[in-house]
């Protein structure tokens, strides 16, 4: 018996593909943002609001990733974004190879910011680098303030956490300060914005964040 030593990470190939995607976006002065959350937290509604706020300033593309259906892509297109619907073939997450396929099919020439709306799931998407420059997690009020304690990894890898459905705060036992404390325990540098996508409230800091990061990306490209 001969033993061949590999000693390589199982995610190595994915990391290489992801780095390639990041380099491509960097070279073009564009941004890719990976949005993760539980099912039903308001990812699509939040993206629709974000597109509204950026209308005429930033061109937005969205890759909708679901196990089935195309309702989300239709919603995005009806609201002025460029969209493509990817079916993950039963997989619970997106990886960099799937992202690349989606980008090639959608085309990013007429897009400044491309969002990946990842499969609704707080576990698996956090493990796989999609090639996005920024990870965002949406935590909605009805889910409860304990989610960062229960699913820490997705919060650890997220630069931004949007606490959504703030309009429902009176109905649910959701402690905003406790949620923030738990998010910061996962990632002390996380930027946390409280929003209501339904009521269109609290979007300014999030929109400013997007604009300033896009500006940085464009500045790097022109250097």
């Amino acid at each position: 018996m001969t033993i061949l030593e590999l000693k390589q990470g199982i995610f190595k190939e994915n990391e290489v593909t992801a780095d390639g995607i990041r380099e491509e976006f960097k070279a073009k002065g564009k941004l890719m943002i990976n949005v993760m959350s539980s099912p039903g937290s308001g990812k699509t509604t939040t993206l629709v609001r974000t597109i509204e706020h950026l209308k005429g300033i930033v061109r937005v593309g969205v890759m909708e990733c679901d196990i089935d259906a195309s309702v989300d892509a239709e919603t995005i297109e009806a609201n002025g974004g460029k969209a493509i619907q990817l079916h993950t073939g039963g997989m619970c997450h997106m990886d960099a190879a799937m992202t690349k396929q989606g980008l090639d099919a959608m085309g990013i020439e007429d897009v400044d910011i491309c969002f990946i709306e990842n499969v609704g799931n707080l576990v698996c998407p956090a493990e796989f680098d999609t090639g996005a420059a920024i990870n965002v997690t949406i935590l909605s009020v009805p889910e409860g303030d304990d989610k960062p304690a229960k699913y820490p990894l997705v919060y650890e890898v997220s630069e931004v956490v949007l606490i959504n459905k703030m309009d429902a705060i009176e109905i649910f036992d959701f402690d905003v300060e406790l949620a923030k404390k738990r998010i910061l325990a996962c990632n002390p540098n996380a930027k946390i914005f409280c929003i209501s996508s339904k009521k269109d409230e609290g979007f300014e800091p999030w929109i400013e964040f997007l604009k300033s990061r896009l500006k940085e990306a464009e500045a790097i490209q022109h250097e």
Partner: protein
Amino acid sequence: MHELGVTFYILKDVKKVAEENDVKKVNYVTVEIGEVSTVIHDQLIDCWNWARKKEEVTKETEMRIETLEAVTYCEDCKGEYRTVEYGKTCPYCGSEHTYLLRGNEFNIKEIGVDDDT
């Protein structure tokens, strides 16, 4: 939860190494899994035993799993402790300023092949 996804990564890597080394049959593949890498061993093996049949070279390849201990470091008292037992809170000083040193690995360590292949 995503054992099936990683199974395909392993299959691809094993196939590639087998091709590079002109191996016709792989007897076993050993993977190293950190204690807190969220991979369920039994499910990974179930997925593997299903997926391995897709490639000639891995048809009878046994999956072996080695567990790597998870260790967390405390920034305040500089202590190291077992993650699985104490989580994010340092058992020596009670601090939560801690981070994982190791234990989320997921590596392919080696494959075993017959000498005559």
